[in-house]
């Protein structure tokens, strides 16, 4: 069964304290790995798509990487405004829909 697992469930950082969020997947036929950010009371906001192992993408303080088994979202020198839930999802070609993880709730303290 296709599955996406995110860890940790929750993470609390001090401002400036870098860390990484993990998204591991067991799916047949990964076509793309997506990262989203969700603020309370809002819909998910698209961050990155990764298509092949070894690929990396960056946006401001965020960098996403992909291997054959997992993806990491690295947060460098986070700020309080980076506090949100970060979701990852795998697009599996055969069933043509996203398989979502449960998310990591990130809190960055000033």
């Amino acid at each position: 069964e296709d599955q996406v697992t995110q860890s940790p469930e929750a993470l609390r950082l001090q401002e400036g304290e870098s860390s990484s969020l993990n998204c591991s997947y067991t799916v047949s036929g990964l076509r793309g790995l997506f990262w989203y950010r969700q603020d309370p009371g809002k819909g998910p906001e698209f961050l990155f798509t990764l298509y092949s192992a070894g690929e990396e993408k960056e946006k401001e303080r965020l960098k996403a990487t992909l291997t054959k088994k997992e993806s990491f979202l690295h947060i460098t020198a986070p700020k309080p405004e980076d506090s949100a839930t970060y979701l990852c999802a795998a697009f599996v070609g055969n069933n043509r829909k996203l398989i979502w993880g449960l998310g990591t709730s990130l809190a960055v303290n000033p």
Partner: protein
Amino acid sequence: GAGVSQSPSNKVTEKGKDVELRCDPISGHTALYWYRQSLGQGLEFLIYFQGNSAPDKSGLPSDRFSAERTGGSVSTLTIQRTQQEDSAVYLCASSPRTGDYEQYFGPGTRLTVT
């Protein structure tokens, strides 16, 4: 440009009543998705449209749920005879087309069934 919009933003209804939730996708996006998000649970896929057709309805929880899309644009999700377990946030997303393309989400409709 305009993003995905959903209405109403909040809906409180009595058990047994029917509700309609509306989604206006980004102009030109041919793919449209409906999800449900409950507290502590991940996004649950309900249905997607390619144009006005719904190739995959596998996520609809029961026959009380239905959805349609007209003119390749606006979509309506209808829940008949609502139950308390239907309470959740219903999210709509659109994409330039189906496949491994990013989806853009609306703000959601919070449904509370009392």
